[in-house]
């Protein structure tokens, strides 16, 4: 009898037994898509696990994995799991100094990394990480003369040798695995304080993968593009847990810069991207449309208007007049179909966005083209699995209904609490944090404030800790305001201030691609971000956006006081290398408030100009100064909407 498929290695071996020749992994290498079947993957994982074991890797040990989405890095997760070890994927774009914390916190002895860049960073961190003893690398380029590091190929060779000498070893190890073993440790992004290691079990991630797969009827012939950071819980669910559970194909892009081309070549059927990717895609489409011929521009404008009117209704299967259906069909032939093809979305059955709020116009745009884009809600602690939007029940301002197996309730203070099989086992070495976030009833405190809307879907307002009050006592939800600002393509990032103050002020980062293109079309010369951001024309452009947001806020009950009265455009882009954003690009509010205290004071003291000098870190670790005289402008506020007569 076949053993139960209750761990990832057993699931993988099940696919290798039942459908050995089906594609499991693809990667574009030297210009050609290479394919590995489930049989190939099983053989590779076997050799890899034996190699690690031969080099002393034991049950319970941690294997750090650092790099872009490479097949071998995904397989090495399976190999570590076979041995009862715990893979710890790390953000590949973090500098060496940030590695030190995670490497020490997780007590890493073994690391498998992509290339020279990552090896260099590990070696730089190594003197401060006494436990680190074994480093393996995938791409040998530039590493020929390094000492003390081993290539993936040598590890495999050693593994095959070990396997021949100990033929029963691999199967024994697989048999030792239990569903409640920890299968992965993912670090939280750390918007407040140090990142924490979240330990998840096989059972938890399999439950999340299974729930999602059944909810969206995923199939073994589905195909996904794996291009999001491997250290992010979203990628681990979509490109690992669901991959091994359902047995579909993951496709690794050729390089970080070729994702758009690769997306088009693969044409995934199942797709996951944070809102900023959808935003960038749309910006690119718009820029190219502006350069297109008159006829094409007219066609695009006309048929996107048709799609706006009836596209989402048709997608949701609602009643639409015949005339509109015919117009939509023509539009599909002339505009939507070709556009989906250019975007690489022709074959998409299910697409999700999560990680941040998505703008209503952006969301509707994709849905109106016939792309089944939906939202989900989850976190590292919940395997990115709490709420999902069902087909036909999609709203831009909610994150979906509780997913199968998830119990969800709202606490008295508005915080979202969840319970279910997908919850974390613990925070690593942080029993205090574990006890704080999971209460006696077994509910996990998400830290998000939200409520259930009448249709039974969850609506998230903000991080509970960020929701404050203005000096006059009205509610202040900074994230809510920032999201409204960020929905404008010209605004890339915004930080709103107002807790315990008499009014709301904001920092703005312009989107240099979108505003740059706008400036080019107006013949407005600029030399770089700092220069562009200081242009009076750009201030006028952004003020328009801010005032539109103010008009929306004025119309919402209780939020009229949250209108943005004054704003400034920052002289530099907020950056994770400067600790202003997390690696998942979330604003670190407290840090920014401290760092730019003079600017906040200037906003509230009514000054019109403020000089600032800021230390910036470049990607290679060097530092430099950026100085600027920042203008501060007022934005018009609207009178609050009159309450409707009852």
């Amino acid at each position, binding site marked *: 009898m076949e053993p139960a498929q209750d761990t990832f290695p057993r699931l993988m071996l099940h696919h290798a037994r039942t459908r050995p020749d089906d594609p499991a992994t693809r990667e574009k290498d*030297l210009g050609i898509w290479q394919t590995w079947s489930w049989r190939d993957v099983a053989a590779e994982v076997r050799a890899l696990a034996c190699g690690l074991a031969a080099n002393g890797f034991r049950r319970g040990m941690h294997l750090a994995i650092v790099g872009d989405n490479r097949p071998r890095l995904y397989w090495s997760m399976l190999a570590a799991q076979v041995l009862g070890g715990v893979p710890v994927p790390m953000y590949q774009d973090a500098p060496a100094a940030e590695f030190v914390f995670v490497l020490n916190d997780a007590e890493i002895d073994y690391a498998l990394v992509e290339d020279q860049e990552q090896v260099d960073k590990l070696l730089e961190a190594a003197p401060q990480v006494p436990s680190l003893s074994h480093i393996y690398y995938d791409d040998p380029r530039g590493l020929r003369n390094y000492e003390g590091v081993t290539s993936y190929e040598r590890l495999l060779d050693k593994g095959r040798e070990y396997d021949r000498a100990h033929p029963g070893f691999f199967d024994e190890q697989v048999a030792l695995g239990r569903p409640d073993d920890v299968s992965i440790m993912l670090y939280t992004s750390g918007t407040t304080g140090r990142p924490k290691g979240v330990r998840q079990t096989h059972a938890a991630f399999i439950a999340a993968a299974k729930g999602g797969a059944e909810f969206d009827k995923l199939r073994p012939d589905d195909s996904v593009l794996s291009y999001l950071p491997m250290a992010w819980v979203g990628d681990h669910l979509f490109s690992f847990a669901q991959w091994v559970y359902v047995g579909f194909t993951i496709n690794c892009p050729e*390089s970080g810069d*070729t994702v758009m081309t690769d997306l088009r070549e693969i044409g995934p059927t199942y797709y996951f991207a944070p809102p900023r990717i959808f935003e960038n895609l749309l910006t690119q489409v718009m820029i190219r449309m502006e350069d297109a011929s008159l006829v094409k521009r007219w066609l695009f404008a006309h048929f996107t208007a048709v799609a706006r009117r009836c596209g989402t209704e048709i997608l949701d299967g609602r009643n639409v007049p015949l005339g509109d259906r015919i117009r939509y069909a023509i539009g599909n032939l002339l505009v939507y179909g070709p556009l989906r093809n250019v975007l690489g979305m022709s074959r998409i059955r299910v697409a999700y966005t999560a990680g941040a709020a998505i703008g209503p116009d952006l969301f509707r745009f994709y849905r109106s083209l016939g792309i089944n884009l939906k939202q989900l809600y989850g976190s590292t602690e919940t395997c990115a699995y709490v709420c999902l939007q069902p087909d036909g029940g999609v709203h831009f301002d909610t994150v979906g209904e509780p997913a199968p197996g998830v119990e969800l309730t709202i606490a008295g203070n508005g915080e979202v609490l969840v319970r279910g099989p997908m919850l974390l086992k613990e925070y690593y070495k942080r029993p205090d944090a574990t006890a704080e976030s999971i209460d006696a009833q077994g509910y996990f405190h998400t830290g998000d404030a939200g409520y259930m809307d009448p249709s039974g879907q969850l609506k998230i307002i903000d991080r509970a800790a960020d929701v404050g009050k203005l000096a006059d006592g009205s509610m202040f939800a900074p994230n809510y305001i920032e999201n409204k600002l960020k929905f404008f393509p010209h605004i890339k990032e915004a930080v709103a201030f107002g807790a315990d103050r008499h009014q709301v002020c904001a920092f703005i980062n312009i989107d240099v691609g979108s505003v740059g293109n706008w400036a080019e079309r107006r013949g407005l010369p600029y030399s770089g971000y700092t220069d562009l951001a200081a242009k009076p024309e750009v201030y006028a452009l952004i003020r328009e956006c801010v005032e539109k947001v103010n008009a929306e806020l004025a119309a919402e009950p209780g939020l009229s006081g949250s209108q943005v009265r004054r704003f400034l455009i920052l002289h530099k882009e907020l950056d994770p290398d400067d600790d202003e954003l997390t690696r998942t690009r979330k604003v670190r509010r407290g840090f920014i408030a401290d760092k730019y205290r003079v600017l906040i004071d200037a906003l509230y003291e009514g000054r019109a100009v403020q000089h600032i000098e800021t230390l910036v870190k470049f990607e290679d670790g060097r530092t430099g100064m950026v100085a600027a005289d920042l203008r501060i402008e007022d934005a018009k506020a609207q009178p609050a909407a009159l309450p409707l007569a009852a």
Partner: protein
Amino acid sequence: MPTPARRIGDVILSLDRISLAFGGVKALTDITFDVREHEVRAIIGPNGAGKSSMLNVINGVYRPQQGTITYRGKQRHGMDSHAVAEAGIARTFQNIALFRGMSVLDNIMTGRNLKVRTSFVEQAIWWRRARREELENRAKVEEVIDFLEIQHIRKTPVGRLPYGLQKRVELARALAAEPSLLLLDEPMAGMNVEEKQDMCRFVLDVNEQYGTTIVLIEHDMGVVMDISDRVVVLDYGRKIGDGTPDEVRGNQAVIDAYLGVAH
């Protein structure tokens, strides 16, 4: 970080008392230096010092009036461009010389020109031999594309690329010829700090991985001092210094002519 243990070999190219003049203008006067196998050899000097002329003498664009060039044991008075290419010498240019309307891929394919053995007719009718050869050449080109990390622009026309990337494509084309000696004329001119760092890494990787000998002209002193094994310094067509970066840095004539007051 472990230092790469490159094995610098014997002299493969030596220039002996080279003089080159254009009418009354003396571009190079009595210059002697050599290049060893597997080393990175830099030629530096102020504008108009004769650096590019020197490179042009090496790869046969100019024929010096006096002096001899010995390349891999063969002594001549001047090099011949075609023979130079066949002898495994490739170069890049100070002002980019690519086919602007052609894609990156096609541009790099032109670097394989000398490796093509099939005839024009065989290629025109897509004869089996021609097809196999094309595949082999393409595979080599893809290796270079991967090496220089330019996969994302494979199909982009060169004219649409920013300057820094065009420089990289030019290096790719030179590498596609699988040279044993690579001449780089200001590979980092006009680049920003990040692009320069990338280019330095590529130059060192080429040198380390393929063992290619590299002669480069460069203005950025930091770059030269970092990546070169030996440096020759020219000023007004004369050699005023030659040695390791440290030796050159301490040479008073060099400091006076080029680096300005010591800092």
